[in-house]
Each structure stands twice: as structure tokens, then as C-alpha cells.
């Protein structure tokens, strides 16, 4: 599964994109966020306030917890500021 990070989240994590194999016990979006937080202090800090993070699963916004089976791409990013 591909994970993408944008804007200050990308800058803070020092990473724009990574490909991971989902651990067996990571079944849904909330599991994934917990798993990411547990990786390092940097990840823990970046995902500390989920109010300032938007999530897209296969390029569609999601606001609820969703299962990750069959998902190819997840993106985490700050609220958008284009236009």
C-alpha cells in the first residue's frame, strides 16, 4: 500500500511517499494511524492532532474509520489552501 504525505506533514516527516506492507493487525484507518504514531517520536508528533489532518483513501476524502482491505493509496495532508 502506498502512503502519501503533503505540505507541512511531508516536511515534518521528511518523506513524501512510502510503500508499506500492512501488518496483520492493521485492518482499518484508525489502526493505521496508531501504527504510524508508534513508529517514532516524529510520527507521533505529526499525528498528534488529527483535527489538522485530512485523509484521502484512493483519492477520495474520508472522515470516518474505513477498512483498508483492497486499498492501494492513502494520503495524509493538512486542510487545503489553494485557489
Amino acid at each position: 500500500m502506498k502512503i502519501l504525505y503533503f505540505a507541512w506533514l511531508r516536511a515534518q516527516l521528511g518523506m513524501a511517499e512510502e510503500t508499506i506492507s500492512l501488518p496483520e493487525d492493521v485492518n482499518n484507518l484508525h489502526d493505521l494511524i496508531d501504527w504510524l504514531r508508534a513508529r517514532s517520536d516524529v510520527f507521533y508528533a505529526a499525528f498528534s492532532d488529527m483535527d489538522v489532518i485530512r485523509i484521502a483513501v484512493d483519492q477520495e476524502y474520508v472522515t470516518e474509520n474505513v477498512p483498508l482491505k483492497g486499498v492501494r493509496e492513502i494520503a495524509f495532508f493538512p486542510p487545503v489552501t489553494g485557489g
Partner: protein
Amino acid sequence: MVIVQEATFDTGTEIKHLTDRNTQIGAVVSFTGLVRDFNDGSAIQSLTLEHYPGMTEKELEKIETQALERWDLTESLIIHRYGKMDLGDPIVLVITASAHRKDAFEAAAFLMDWLKTKAPFWKLEENASGNQNWVSERSSDIDAAEEWE
């Protein structure tokens, strides 16, 4: 039509392309967003727009489809740039054309309001001293977008 590009654009040229010789059009509205020198009070030197290739186009197309369902439009165009831009450069263009001015005005305002809160772009400002700042979400933009719900 939706275009996401790094290159600059010219509003007048785009209006001409979209509307020339179409005699069903009575009203054309354009909105051009430019890099201005103050945002939240601090002087800006340049602006870099980051985006989410693939999702950006999809979101803009969804927003345009909404506009075409809600208003009677003969033509519509959204151009949004990414990459580094200087002061005064155009960032975004919305053009709507209709038989009637009310449709053209409302659809253009709607497209901009939704684009501001839904299209995955992020602005990074740089000031004269080289300091960088990720632009924050504005509550006024959220309010404007919600008025169309």
C-alpha cells in the same frame, strides 16, 4: 474543462478561446486569483503551490460537475497552477459562460468557494528573509463553501 498546470496562463486568451463565436452566450464571468504581497499581514516574496497529482484533477472535475448540474452554463473552465510563482502571477482561473448573468455569477463564485476547501493544493509562502510559512486554512473560506451546501 479542468486544467492543472505548472505554466502560467492569460485570462483574456482563455476567455476568448472559451467563448469566441458562441452566440448562445450572453454572460461571461471570470475570476482570476493572483499572488498578492500581503497575506495575514506579512510581506511575501514568492509562493509555492504543492498539490496531489491525480486527486487534484478528480476533485476539480467533481466540483465542475456540481456547477454544471446546479446552473445553466454554456461553458466552464477551471485552470489551477502548481509550483513556484512570483508576486502578481496568476494562480487560479475560473470562467463561466451562460445565457444569463445570474447563472454565470453564481456558478463562478461557487466554483471558487468549493475549490478553496476541497481541491488538494497547499500554499507555501516565502518572505524576503527567506522564511517559509505554510498558509493556514481560513474559517471564512469554510463558511463560504458551506453556504452552497
